[in-house]
C-alpha cells in the first residue's frame, strides 16, 4: 500500500469513481475492523463500527489532506469511532474480565500462541486509550509521530502514556497469573 496509490484512489473517489472507494475498503477493511476489534472486542459491534468508519470516511473524504498518510487518517477515524462506541456502552456490556484464561498453574509457562491470546484478552482490561497506544506501537509498529497524529496528542505524551500502558498491561497479565517466559 503506497501513499501515492492511496492519494490516487482518493482523488478518483472524489471524482465519482466508486470502484476507487471499493479499492480503499478492500485495502483498509482489515485495518479498520482490526482497530474496532481491538478496542471493542470482536463481534457485531466491531463490524458496525467498522462499517460506520467507512461511511464517515466516504462522506468526509474531501477533508482529507494528502500531507498526512491516508493510513493514519483512516486509523484516526477508526480509533475515534471505536472509542465512542466503547464510551456509549452500558457498564454491563463491557468485556467480561473472566474471559481471561488463567493457566492451571500460575507459574506454568505459556506457549507463544497462548500468550498472544492472553495478551489480546488482557488488553481488553486496559483503558481504551491505553489499549490503542499499545496496539499502535507494537501491533501496527508505528513511530511516535504517527501515533501522536492518530491519537491527537503530543509525542511526549505518547511516550509517557505508552510507558504507563505497558506497565498496566504487564500488571494485568501478572494478576491473571500469566507468566511471560522470556
Amino acid at each position, binding site marked *: 500500500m503506497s501513499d501515492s496509490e492511496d492519494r490516487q484512489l482518493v482523488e478518483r473517489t472524489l471524482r465519482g469513481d466508486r470502484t476507487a472507494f471499493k479499492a480503499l*475498503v478492500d485495502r483498509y477493511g*482489515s485495518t479498520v475492523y482490526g482497530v474496532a476489534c481491538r478496542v471493542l472486542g470482536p463481534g457485531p459491534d466491531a463490524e458496525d463500527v467498522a462499517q460506520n468508519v467507512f461511511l464517515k470516511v466516504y462522506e468526509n473524504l474531501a477533508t482529507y489532506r494528502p500531507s498526512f498518510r491516508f493510513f493514519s487518517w483512516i486509523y484516526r477515524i477508526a480509533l475515534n469511532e471505536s472509542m465512542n462506541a466503547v464510551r456509549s456502552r452500558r457498564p454491563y456490556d463491557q468485556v467480561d474480565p473472566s474471559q481471561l484464561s488463567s493457566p492451571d498453574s500460575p507459574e506454568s509457562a505459556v506457549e507463544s500462541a497462548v500468550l498472544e491470546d492472553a495478551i489480546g484478552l488482557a488488553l481488553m482490561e486496559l483503558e481504551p486509550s491505553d489499549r490503542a497506544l499499545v496496539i499502535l506501537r507494537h501491533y501496527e509498529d508505528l513511530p511516535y509521530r504517527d501515533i501522536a497524529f492518530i491519537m491527537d496528542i503530543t509525542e511526549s505524551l505518547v*511516550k509517557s502514556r505508552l510507558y504507563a500502558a505497558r506497565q498496566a498491561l504487564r500488571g494485568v497479565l501478572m494478576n491473571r497469573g500469566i507468566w511471560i517466559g522470556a
Partner: protein
Amino acid sequence: MNPEILSIIQAELDGTASPAEISRLDAAAAADAEIRTLRGEYGEIARAVGRMAVPVVPHGFATRVMAALPPPARARVPARDRIRAIVQSIVPSHRQQVALAFALGVLATFMVTLTVTDWTQPDSDMVSGTIRVPSGATVPFYGNAGVLEAAWIDGVRRITVRPREAMSLRVVVSGPVAEPPAVEVEVADGTLTLERSGGDVVLTTELAGVVRFSVPGQSDIRIRVESEDEVLVDWTPVPGEP
C-alpha cells in the same frame, strides 16, 4: 526498581534509547536479575502484541459497506461549499449575489396556466381542458442541479382523449447546458388513468402533489404529457404569465 532503568527499558522497546543508554541497561541487567527479568518480560509482551492474530474481516464486509454508501454527490464537496463556489463563479461580487438572491425570490413566485389546445375536432373524443399550476415554484440550486417544484392543484382534471393504453408525463429540458442534463421525474401521488364516462373516454389526471424534476443550471423547462404517438400537453413556464 530504578525509574531511570525502567524508562530505558521502555525506550529500548520503542527504538529510542541511545547507545549509551543501551550500554547502561546491559550493564544493569548483567548485575541485577530483576532488571533482566523485567527487560525480558517487556520485550516478550511487545513481541506478543505484534504477533496477535489479525482479525478476519467478516465475509461480504466490503459489499455491505458499498451498499450503505450515500449517493455519489455526497462524497464530494459539501453542498454548502458547492453552492458557494457556483454562486461565486457566476457573481463574484457580494452585491451582485444579493441581487441574484432577490431575483430568484421573485422568479419563484409565479403562476402558470397550462392550456391544452387543438382538441376540438368534431366527433372526436378529445376536448380542451385546463390544468392549472398555482404558485409556489421555487428554484433552489444544489451544486449543478436546480430543482423547480411545481405544485399541481388538487383534484381531478378531465381531458377526454382518444383511447390510449399508455400515457406518460415527461419533462423535456432544453436551453444553454454544457452537457446533457440529468432529469429525474417524480410524480407524487400522481396517476394518469383512462376511464369511460358515458360515450367518451376520459383521461383523468390526478396529479395532486408535486411534480419534481432536476435540471442543470438555468435550463428552460417544458412539461409534456404524451400518449404513445401524440403530445397532449406541452408546457413551458413563463414568469409572470397568468
